[in-house]
């Protein structure tokens, strides 16, 4: 079975438009959460989000393209261009055919959908723009990446709410291992800070109205973020043959479903995914030094995830550094597993666990070491990234330092 390495990373988030911005703010624990500016929040209980800032689509894309390019697909494209340039890859000839694009999203072109339906339902508009459909479909991001970069191998989107990008990365791993492809451009994207969507999230009563404080006693919910993350995966043979710089190895994939509830998470399902990922990587629980937790900051997730980690890691749980970087970049839903995969790979490369920001007092129900507020230099050989989505769809990835 082929070993798979990471040779490129790109992202856009509330921390900035590049991976470099992401990395520096992540490790300093500088949160991108702030007041919502994308719409008027008068009458909303929820007034904060982790928005992509200083963003002008007209400066980044030709106007003609924008009629077919939703904000979520723009993010997918920006992150993927950066990741592919970072990997030093250009796609032509046989390589284009041997490269896959798998990019997840929770919803897809929500801005397009919402604004256009608003027009027909309430504004008496008799017709919609002819490209409304191609602009809003949740596979548009994958299509745009393949078109823009000239990738002609298998391309599709995955969707599983907060695990969408985890499943995308997982499918990419399986394709590389099976020999269907040599390279995969994979991750996820989300842009749903819109009037209707935040209103809908507000109704769920899982949203914080100040900030995201995962695992902390004072936590009062999640904060929605937007953005995209893309990593370039290659078989080790392919990366070596072209002398590519290697960030790390993706060694384990675990997937499970709770088969329990659309909203309530189940510790058993989360634990099953973590065990499956360790098995896949061929690692003992004691090998893991750092976990990038799902850590949404809701009353329900954090104790459940803590219990699941204890079930899997036993006494080693007390030696783990566990942080939720959602406190920094928000919960980016379909992009979450991608941004958090990047955070985990950065932790391996910098030998430093990123912090859980906004942490106040410990909660007796959450009794692990959550790396409160300050990044921690430490040896990390293997690290895990957890994603546990609504509806009980779980993905866990294991990343390892690259050794010949």
């Amino acid at each position, binding site marked *: 079975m082929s070993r798979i390495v990471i040779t490129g990373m790109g992202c856009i988030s509330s921390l900035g438009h590049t991976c470099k911005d992401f990395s520096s703010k992540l490790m300093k624990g500088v949160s991108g959460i702030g007041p919502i500016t994308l719409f008027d929040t008068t009458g909303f209980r929820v007034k904060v989000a982790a928005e992509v800032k200083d963003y002008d689509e007209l400066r980044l894309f030709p106007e003609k393209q924008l009629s077919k390019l939703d904000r979520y697909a723009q993010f997918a494209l920006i992150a993927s261009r950066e990741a592919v340039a970072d990997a030093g890859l250009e796609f032509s000839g046989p390589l284009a055919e041997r490269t896959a694009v798998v990019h997840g999203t929770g919803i897809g072109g929500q801005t397009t959908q919402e604004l256009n339906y608003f027009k027909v339902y309430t504004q008496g508009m008799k017709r919609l723009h002819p490209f409304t459909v191609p602009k809003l479909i949740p596979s548009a991001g994958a299509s745009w990446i393949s078109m823009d970069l000239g990738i002609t191998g298998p391309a599709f989107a995955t969707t599983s709410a907060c695990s969408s990008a985890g499943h995308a990365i997982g499918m990419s791993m399986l394709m590389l291992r099976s020999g269907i492809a040599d390279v995969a451009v994979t991750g996820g994207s989300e842009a749903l800070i819109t009037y209707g969507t935040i209103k809908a999230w507000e109704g769920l*009563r899982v*949203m914080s109205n100040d900030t995201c404080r995962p695992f902390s006693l004072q936590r009062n*919910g999640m904060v929605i973020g937007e953005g995209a993350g893309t990593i370039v995966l290659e078989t080790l043979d392919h990366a070596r043959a072209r002398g590519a710089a290697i960030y790390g190895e993706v060694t384990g994939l675990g997937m499970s479903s709770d088969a329990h509830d659309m909203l309530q998470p189940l510790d058993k399902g989360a634990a099953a995914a973590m065990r499956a990922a360790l098995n896949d990587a061929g690692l003992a629980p004691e090998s893991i030094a750092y976990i990038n937790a799902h850590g949404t900051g809701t009353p329900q997730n954090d104790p459940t995830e803590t219990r699941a980690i204890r079930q899997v890691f036993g006494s080693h749980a007390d030696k783990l550094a566990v942080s939720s970087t959602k406190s920094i970049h928000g919960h980016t839903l379909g992009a979450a597993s991608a941004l958090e995969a990047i955070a985990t790979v950065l932790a391996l490369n910098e030998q430093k666990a990123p912090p859980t920001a906004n942490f106040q007092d410990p909660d007796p129900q959450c009794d692990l070491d959550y790396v409160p507020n300050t990044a921690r230099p430490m040896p990390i050989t293997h690290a895990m990234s957890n994603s546990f989505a609504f509806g009980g769809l779980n993905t866990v990835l294991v990343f390892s330092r690259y050794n010949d």
Partner: protein
Amino acid sequence: MSESVSDAVLNILAKHTELDRDKVTPDTPLQLSGVDSLMMVEIIFDLEEHFDISIPDEMLGMQNQKLETAADVVLLVEELIQKQQTA
């Protein structure tokens, strides 16, 4: 407590708990009737829609000790209606 508010609240609680309407009284304990935090989210939505009030997030969740019985919910709704009218 006013009759109509109480009746409407108990109707909504009966609908969500799937208890017979005549079994739901002001003394009905919420937790023992199977009201968990998710069911509470739906109950609150129905109450907000029915009475045109806004129930704050703090009234919800496992840590909340203020809503133990159906009567507590009726009281809260009455308070919020009052607040709405004087606002």
